[in-house]
């Protein structure tokens, strides 16, 4: 458990940003992960009174405030009318409803957890993060940036007609994933994201060139070979490197099949 000396309910983002420049100060998300550690926090910064708990949308995108809970994203009908409802499907197995009513999207994405379902899924969409100081940058750039003192204000997801599939393997229904695979297809462009390897999620850039609009068995095999050869998988208490490679093969096949409307024969 952590300790907190001072607690500030931020009046605006400028104040929050200024406070966050001190090393021992921290922005609070849902605290579910934070409380697993032993940090001594000088000043905790609470963003919950800044109206950042909403999902807004216009014709081009969804803008999700950093304090929006995972549960609010999961049950938002408009958000899940896109991407084959994959956002909801990627969240539903995270611990329980009560947990997802606490956990925030800002906390999840800022932390860039290796086991993150939602980071894996959002990397397969056209997603950006809005930072207070750093402006709007692609999530794929942000996820590899060092943890700094900026403030993640919103997640921006561009609306498009992409089809999305999402698969995970878990030791039990509510455990963190042993492997997570998100696959999307927009027109003839495929994106394959592997998460919980157990390292943080990554986009397989080669997928775009290996897979044609309607991938053949050979193309899928060649992508799987590439992934097993080039993508780094690791071992931990949830599974070995070899086991994760087998799961990756199965999920890549299933994901592509689901999107192209084929069978599960693999």
């Amino acid at each position: 458990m952590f300790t907190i000396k001072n607690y500030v309910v931020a009046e605006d983002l400028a104040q929050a940003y200024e406070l966050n420049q001190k090393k021992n100060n921290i922005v609070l998300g849902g605290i579910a992960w934070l409380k697993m550690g032993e940090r001594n926090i000088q000043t905790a910064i609470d963003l919950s009174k800044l109206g950042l708990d909403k999902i807004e949308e216009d014709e081009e995108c969804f803008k999700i405030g950093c304090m929006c809970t995972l549960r609010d994203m999961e049950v938002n009908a408009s958000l899940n009318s896109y991407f084959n409802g994959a956002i909801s499907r990627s969240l539903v197995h995270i611990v329980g409803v009560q947990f997802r009513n606490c956990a925030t999207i800002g906390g999840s994405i800022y932390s860039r957890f290796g086991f993150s379902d939602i980071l894996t899924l959002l990397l397969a969409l056209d997603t950006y993060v809005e930072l207070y100081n750093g402006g709007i940058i692609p999530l794929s750039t942000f996820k590899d940036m060092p943890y700094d003192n900026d403030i993640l204000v919103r997640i921006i997801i561009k609306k498009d007609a992409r089809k999305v599939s999402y698969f995970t393997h878990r030791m039990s229904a509510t455990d963190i994933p042993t492997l997570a695979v998100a696959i999307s297809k927009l027109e003839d462009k495929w994106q394959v994201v592997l998460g919980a390897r157990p390292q943080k999620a990554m986009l397989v850039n080669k997928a775009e060139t290996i897979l044609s609009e309607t991938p053949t068995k050979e193309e899928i095999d060649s992508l799987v070979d590439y992934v097993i050869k080039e993508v780094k998988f690791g071992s931990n208490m949830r599974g070995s490197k070899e086991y994760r490679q087998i799961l990756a093969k199965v999920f890549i096949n299933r994901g592509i099949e689901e999107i192209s409307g084929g069978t599960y024969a693999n």
Partner: protein
Amino acid sequence: MQIKLWVNNKVFEDDIAVDTLLIDYLRSKGFYSVKRGCETANCGLCTVHLEGKPVLSCSTLVMKANGLHVTTLEGMQEEVEEFGTFLADEGAEQCGFCSPGFIMNVLAMKKELVNPTELEIKQYLSGNLCRCTGYMGQLRAIKKYLEIAKED
């Protein structure tokens, strides 16, 4: 820091340490239905309603509840007894330690889901662990309870 919140519609004003968790605050006020069954935000035993939504009080700072309404099992006697009868009739409980958090989540589910399927019930309640049973009795009790609830 000075706070003001409502627990079961009764106002509480206190000067608290800012790192106090809601679970510890509630227990210090005598709401012993709120229990800690794990240290990892996984078991659901500490479930309370914050502005009507089920949350883990072990993962909520009291500061987050400042100015808001908290409901514990003690504040929902009538509904709890009604559903508790269904649990007892199905012989669902063994040690009963997980029941308060479980019941609080069932009551939240009843408010939120309309005519849920078995899968939806399981998904809504999967964050409530029970180490005695196999959940079958609870599931029977919920189905019977929701059937009755529908007739109201």
